[in-house]
């Protein structure tokens, strides 16, 4: 809502300047988005008189003028040929920034200095009608009495600011100037000077007509339908003051009839519509459209209607879409002599549905959707009637008023005690009287109860808390001090599950990975490839196609991050994300219940570690990422089992593993299949993805400590040569078995292929740690165990051995 201060001052005393008033309103809960100075561009445009007019010495097309502004004369070059000596003209001085964006400097034109610029109406974004007829196509020529030296804006009465209110949905009343005036009065304590017509209980003094019949078929959708019949309509432009106010409010002036309806809408908040009375046959009906019914609206589009839309119609045809847009056939034209001005109340539901379905927006529809005072219809017609007469635009004849279902009066009861309890500061009855007086709400005090009559225009006030907010607003939120809640201490701590998730995040960061956050919605094809197409949940109204489905895997998001980074030459990537995937978990579409949200952790690595003079870089390959998964397992006290992956067509068949916790598969790890890598990923990218909640259930959060061994252990190295296809983990398991309880650990520290190992074999070197809790082990028994292990492995895996 754009509020012109010049207009507002007519309705309420305003002592503050625009900026201070904006602060007052904002701090009172009516947020002012911006304050525009409409004549900012005219600040350095003054009225001058042409003292001398000569041809430019160097140009046929230019003129050289001497322009006097009272104290000083300026030499100005102009190209316009409509000037005469003695004309009063707008002169833009050097430094001016005109409303059309042009900045004015003193500069030489064809060798002659021009100390400013004479302006046309267009350059000043003014209507040409503000000047003499000779202004057309040239410099704006002002009336002969225009005062030389005065600022143009002040002379034209353009001297005003506009506050742009950003209204919350609970305050549609402030879409009306009179209610903004009331609000200003409530917040500043200044008096309103609202005219009679602002009072909705005052009825216009006009007869009710018997000739106009209104039939409301839908009393719930049309609570009231009032009309004003006007004769002797004379279509003409409206006066300057009205045009100016409309323009300031952002409404384009059209002609007196349209302007009056718009003006009253801005003033009182009541949307109005004028029909050409001669086009109406029989009664006015407010009814639902029939399926397939057609109407050509004012914007000349033919609309196909359905029974969810409310129509204004006569006995034979549709006249307009109720509260949204009128019909072309009943439009007021230059030939119109008699009109019916409609002032009605339509329910937001119907307006919203109609507008949505037809993709049609209008100021009236916008207001009805937000809420219009159903008691304001007649008062608005009274004001229209007054303006018609004042502007000589027509002769009001009679009123019609048909009531559908009007809401009853509202009374709210509240007390000072409860107000103080909710707000947390002392509130007296005197405070509340002041508040209610300022609001202008009638009330009675019974015992300690204030019984407040809520005026019909404050549609937002229904319950005690609403009035408490009004009290807080008017007394000032600044009176609320900071207190500590009474009542006992409570203990706040993360649940074990929340703590687990937090640790998981920190463990991965500790492993040198960077955390990323990607959108939960992804491209459907990518998700189908990496996740589960049958579990995917699609958005009905995605922002863009590549954000069409809720992810069922985190990997597509990570691949996108990796690709984006690689394309920006951030080649060495090691990233992870912890976030939900969304699984429909039901065959029904549309969904019958909420999908399952499951927390996952996924990682992606590509490139290699940073180069460093001490160490050679390690490649971000399968074993790098596996190492991170293993570190995660160690730190969270989980034991993962890795088995060659099955059924992972997008992963390298020889470099991918399913990850198990016990017998349950919880995730996957692998290099992206080279055949798909081009499409999806950076070269040799590696990914993993794990379910988080099974990990949490298995994780040994509670640690049981063991004491330090009392006897020294014995370290032995051992290498075995086994066929290549034998998994290392099998050899290790067998070694641990053969070593018995004295063998504590067997770690692979070297893998070797090449001479002199046969081609289809490889050498695995283990570091074995023997320990007894009871005694110091002798060399003999350890040697015997080593021999047993070697012989066992040889036997089981057809392995040769060699001693390191």
């Amino acid at each position, binding site marked *: 809502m754009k509020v012109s201060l010049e207009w507002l001052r007519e309705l309420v005393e305003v002592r503050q300047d625009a900026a201070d008033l904006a602060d007052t309103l904002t*701090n009172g*809960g009516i947020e002012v988005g911006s304050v525009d100075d409409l004549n900012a561009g005219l600040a350095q445009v003054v009225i001058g008189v042409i003292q001398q007019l000569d041809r430019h010495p160097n140009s046929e097309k230019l003129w050289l003028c001497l322009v006097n502004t009272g104290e000083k004369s300026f030499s100005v070059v102009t190209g316009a040929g409509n000037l005469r000596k003695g004309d009063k003209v707008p002169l833009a001085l050097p430094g001016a920034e005109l409303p059309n964006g042009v900045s004015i400097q003193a500069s030489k034109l064809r060798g002659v200095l021009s100390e400013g610029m004479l302006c046309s109406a267009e350059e000043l974004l003014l209507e040409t009608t503000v000047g003499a007829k000779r202004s057309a196509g040239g410099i704006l020529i002002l009336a002969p009495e225009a005062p030389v030296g005065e600022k143009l804006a002040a002379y034209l009465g353009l001297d005003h600011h506009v506050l742009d209110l950003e209204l*919350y*949905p*609970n*305050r*549609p009343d402030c879409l009306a100037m009179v209610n903004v005036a009331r609000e200003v009065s409530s917040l500043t304590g200044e008096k309103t000077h609202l005219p009679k017509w602002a009072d909705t209980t005052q009825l216009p003094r006009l007869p009710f007509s018997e000739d106009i019949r209104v039939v409301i078929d839908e009393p719930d959708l049309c609570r009231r339908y009032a009309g004003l019949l006007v004769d002797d309509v004379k279509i003409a432009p409206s006066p300057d003051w009205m045009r100016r106010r409309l323009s300031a409010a952002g409404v384009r002036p059209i002609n007196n009839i349209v302007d009056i309806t718009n003006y009253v809408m801005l003033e009182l908040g009541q949307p109005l519509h004028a029909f050409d009375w001669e086009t109406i046959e029989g009664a006015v009906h407010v009814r639902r459209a029939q399926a397939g019914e057609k109407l050509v609206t004012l914007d000349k589009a033919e609309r196909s209607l359905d029974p969810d839309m409310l129509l204004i119609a006569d006995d034979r045809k549709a006249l307009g879409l109720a509260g949204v847009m009128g019909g072309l056939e009943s439009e007021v034209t230059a030939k119109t002599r008699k009109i019916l001005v409609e002032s009605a109340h339509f329910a*937001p539901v119907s307006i919203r549905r109609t507008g949505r379905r037809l993709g049609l927006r209008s100021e009236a529809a916008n207001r009805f959707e937000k809420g219009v005072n159903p008691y304001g219809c007649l008062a608005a017609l009274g004001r229209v009637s007054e303006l018609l007469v004042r502007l000589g635009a027509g002769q009001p004849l009679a009123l019609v008023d048909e009531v559908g279902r009007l809401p009853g009066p509202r009374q709210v009861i509240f007390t000072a005690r409860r107000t103080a*309890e*909710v*707000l*947390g*500061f002392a509130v007296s009855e005197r405070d509340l009287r002041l508040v209610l007086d300022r609001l202008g709400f009638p009330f009675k005090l019974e015992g300690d109860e204030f019984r407040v009559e809520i005026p019909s225009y404050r549609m937002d006030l229904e*319950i005690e*808390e609403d009035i408490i*907010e009004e009290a*807080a607003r008017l007394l000032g*939120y600044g009176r*609320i*001090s*900071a*207190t*500590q*809640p009474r*009542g006992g201490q*409570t203990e*706040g*701590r*993360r*649940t074990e599950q929340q703590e687990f998730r937090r640790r998981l*995040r*920190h463990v*991965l*960061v500790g*492993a*040198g*990975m*960077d*955390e990323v*956050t*990607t*959108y*939960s*919605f992804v491209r459907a094809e990518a998700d189908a490839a990496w996740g589960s197409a049958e579990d995917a*949940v*699609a*958005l009905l*109204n995605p922002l863009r196609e590549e954000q069409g489905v809720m992810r069922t895997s985190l990997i597509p998001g990570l691949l996108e*991050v990796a690709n984006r980074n690689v394309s920006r030459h*951030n080649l060495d990537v*090691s*990233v992870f994300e912890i*976030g939900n995937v969304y699984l429909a978990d039901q065959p029904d579409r*549309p*969904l019958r219940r*909420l*999908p399952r*949200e499951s927390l996952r952790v996924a990682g992606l690595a590509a490139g290699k570690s940073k180069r460093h*003079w001490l*160490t050679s870089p390690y490649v971000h390959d399968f074993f790098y990422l596996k190492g991170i998964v293993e570190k995660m397992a160690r730190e969270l006290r989980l034991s993962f089992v890795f088995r060659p992956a099955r059924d992972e067509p997008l992963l390298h068949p020889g470099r991918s593993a399913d990850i198990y916790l016990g017998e349950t598969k919880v995730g996957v790890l692998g290099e992206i299949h080279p055949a798909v890598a081009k499409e999806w990923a950076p070269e040799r990218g590696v990914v993993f993805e794990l379910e988080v909640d099974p990990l949490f259930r298995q994780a040994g959060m509670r640690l049981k400590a063991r004491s330090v061994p009392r006897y020294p252990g014995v370290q032995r190295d051992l290498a075995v040569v086994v066929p290549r296809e034998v998994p290392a983990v099998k050899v290790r398991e067998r070694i641990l078995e053969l070593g018995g309880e004295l063998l504590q650990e067997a770690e692979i520290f070297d893998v070797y292929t090449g001479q002199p190992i046969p081609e289809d074999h490889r050498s695995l070197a283990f570091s074995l740690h023997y320990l007894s809790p009871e005694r110091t082990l002798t060399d003999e028994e350890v040697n015997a165990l080593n021999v047993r292990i070697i012989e066992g492995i040889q036997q089981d895996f057809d392995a040769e051995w060699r001693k390191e």
Partner: protein
Amino acid sequence: MVRLQEEVRRLEAETLALLAKTDTLDGIRDLKVKVLGKKGTLTALLRQMGSLPPQERPLMGQIVNEARNKLEQAWNERERLLEERILQERLEGERVDVTLPGFRFPEGHLHPLSQIIEEIEDIFLGMGFEIAEGPEIETDYYNFEALNLPKEHPARDMQDSFYISEEILLRSQTSPVQIRTMERQHPRLPVKIIAPGKVYRKDDDATHSPMFHQVEGLFVDRGIRMSDLKGVLLNFSRQMFGADREIRLRPSFFPFTEPSAEVDVSCMLCGGAGCRVCKGTGWLEILGSGMVHPKVLAMGGYDPREVTGFAFGMGAERVAMLKYGIEDMRLMFDNDLRFLRQF
């Protein structure tokens, strides 16, 4: 005797001269063996003492011993000197360029939003709030209706949501967790939670992202006042943005609170004097808040005549942008490693 005496003197002088010329530890050790060893020259002179008359022997012994002591002393000194020199040489040889970089441990980085959310969580945990969670895909009932936003309510236009079906949508706020928590906890008091999480709205520009993170707060108990809301949020703001922060409440509107308040924090960049970030006002709008609407309390199963409560919500991205001076919200979802590795 005199001959012997002279020989000792000569040997002593020769040996001292030789010692001074010998530069290696091995060299002086050899010299020591040659002179002082069992078969050494000085030892040999001592043996010749047997040929002297008995009355001269003590004097001669004394002379030889003096020479021996003198030589040993010189030898020790020389050894110390050489050892020192060798150590010096070794240290000199082992000198490294201490300005070269040390071993590189790879460091990872927590996403700025994770850091901010963890920090917010920790502050409220410290004030006795628990952390509650709820689904990101919600029913219309929890996301709107139970929050006093019936269908066709004009305030629904404040947020343009992503829909899955007519009744299921991506939550546009974390507020549905208020209702879910009250339902779960009813009738126990107090209800004292924060609910961080992802929310979704159809916006995409420098200050809006279609997915972002909110942290919701709810405190319901007997006798909760709006001034308690201010107390808790003042405490939070000071821990989050600095001990000298102030806050102010401004009237606002949310369908699920009444009265409602916008919470401004005094600008941490200019200290309230006014700057570009606070648009010259000295204040930054950070939270939406208010007293829980009676209808919402009732929807959660609590009797609004017996309990009151406050609720608040803030955008984690906004907090991160202010705290770290991030200009474009989209950077946080762009995941450029050069951006992320600053945190």
